[in-house]
């Protein structure tokens, strides 16, 4: 994986933005295709079978489901093809919709080229890419009070104490490496925790996470 380039398809309805992404990604990444709406995205992904799809959340076409629809339609291609959501929106509903559709991470379009390349490589390796904002959202949705800590590891509706710590540090702007240093664990362990949180976010029966989060905001 270290010598091979990560093959990427960029899906976004703005040509300017696709060009910008293409230019900002570094040498570890090879953009093999582009698409501008739901239909062409599904076609391009099926044709190129990329390692990672950089997926805009709001896309025209299809049945109106945007990026989440693309991820759901191409779910049979995973784990060969993984999705990284990329959006200007930081609304909780958009984040949850695309993560629950199977995306392995969520970054906002303000991200720098180097950070985006890191996130792409991380997703290609099967890990999850969490931006500080996504981590903050996870904490908001699952709760931060002592009563919100999971007692068993297999609980899907609550985060374990360690997962909460990791999420908190990511929300504070720490890179994975810095999180590892702060908690005296390896980067690999941090990645394991983040993937576990992603799984909970995707599978939790704490249904309608968004509405729940919205209610919390109304406190």
């Amino acid at each position, binding site marked *: 994986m270290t010598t091979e380039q990560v093959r990427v398809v960029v899906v976004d309805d703005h040509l300017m933005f696709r060009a910008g992404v293409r230019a900002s990604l570094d040498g570890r990444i090879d953009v093999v295709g582009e698409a501008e709406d739901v239909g062409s995205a599904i076609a391009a992904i099926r044709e190129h079978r990329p390692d990672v799809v950089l997926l805009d959340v709001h896309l025209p076409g299809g049945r109106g489901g945007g990026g989440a629809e693309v991820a759901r339609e191409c779910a049979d291609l995973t784990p060969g093809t993984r999705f990284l959501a990329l959006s200007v929106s930081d609304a909780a509903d958009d984040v949850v919709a695309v993560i629950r559709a199977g995306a392995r991470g969520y970054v906002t379009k303000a991200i720098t080229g180097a950070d985006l390349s890191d996130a792409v490589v991380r997703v290609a390796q099967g890990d999850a890419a969490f931006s500080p904002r996504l981590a903050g959202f996870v904490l908001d949705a699952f709760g931060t009070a002592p009563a919100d800590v999971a007692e068993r590891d297999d609980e899907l509706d609550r985060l374990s104490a360690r997962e909460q710590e990791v999420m908190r540090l990511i929300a504070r702007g720490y890179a994975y490496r*810095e999180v590892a240093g702060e908690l005296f664990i390896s980067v690999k362990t941090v990645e394991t925790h983040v993937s576990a949180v992603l799984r909970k976010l995707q599978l939790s029966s704490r249904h309608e996470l968004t509405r729940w989060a919205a209610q919390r905001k109304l406190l």
Partner: protein
Amino acid sequence: MTTERLPLRRPREGRWVAGVCTGLALHLGFPVAGVRAMAVLLGAAGGAGVLLYGFWWLTIPPGDPRDAAAEARPAALSRLAPRLRGVQQSAARRNVLIALGLLLGAAVLVAVRTGVALSGGWVLPAVIAVVGVGLAWSQLDTQRRPGARRADGRSPSAVLLVSAGLVLVLVGALLFAGQEAGAGTMVRAAMAAVAVLAGVAVVLAPWWWRLVRELGDERTARAREAERADIAAHLHDSVLQTLALVRLHADDAVYVARAARSQERELREWLYADRPAEGTSVAAELRRVVAQVEDTQVERTADGAQPATIETVVVGDAVPDEQSAALLQAVREALVNACAHGVPPVSVYLEVGEESVQAFVRDRGDGFDVREIEPDRFGVRESILGRVRRRGGTAEVVSRPQWGTEVRLSMPRAAALKEDA
């Protein structure tokens, strides 16, 4: 607007009984007193006025004629802010109704005394039926009143009252029609009547249903149009202005970047956030603090000075109090310091817990030795650490070379402090 005639509505403001006279006066442009006098005169003359009044009460929809006029125009053209309300008179209406009832009673008594033969046979059914009709129609009036209805326009008590009214009218009609008949005939007649009514209801139901649905559709369409006009007005005000300013200052990179960032922040708030009411959200206060810092500070990047961009993450929310206000002031100082002395990206994380509010401000500079802060350097020691510690919070500065600096603040919430005391 001045030349146009106001639509016929029964306004809530300034009405005596059901607002028919006030509405007529507004519609025709006559003085209200004159219209009322006319109505009373007509009423005295054989009850025509009363009948007419009842007819209009039923057929004229309630509402403010000025609002109705505004609604009839496209939303994009009318003002968005609601109008100020006039004085509401609701007590008078009940008094007038009671007076009408008493007058009716007196008239009946007078009629009995003067020897008009009132056979008890029809008085009781008539009274029952009139009460039933009154009960049902009173609901017709309140149902259409804006604000008092639920989403579907009905409340359980309204449905109950209408059905009670219906039953009363049925009973009254049966008593009236079947005065001489025996109990068996009455029951059969009642069943026949109910069956006929049910048949009619089944036939008419689809039409009624479609009418209701079309009304709802129209209402939502209007609301959507108003919303769109609202957003268009906002876009015009802020985004176009920013674009004009950006074009004027195209050679001033810092200014352009700052204007773009400020506009982005505002637009984001509009598009993706539920905007909480003023003074109810610590998260909103923090965003305001961040906006102020971004608008005034410059950070040192590899490409030279750039307007500050601060990554902000908030978890939880609460109503602001003095404790959180002090914490946010300290956060503000920390952000200013981070922009001035640190290296971007600068990030702030705020977590509102049940007991305390925690804030972390991080930058990626080379760090500095906290012990080397001169005692006379007021910035960090007083305005950040002191401010939080004086209110029972904890504050520390962690700084490492090649890692940057993080200010960690934790402030107990006012509610939690009171419980301890």
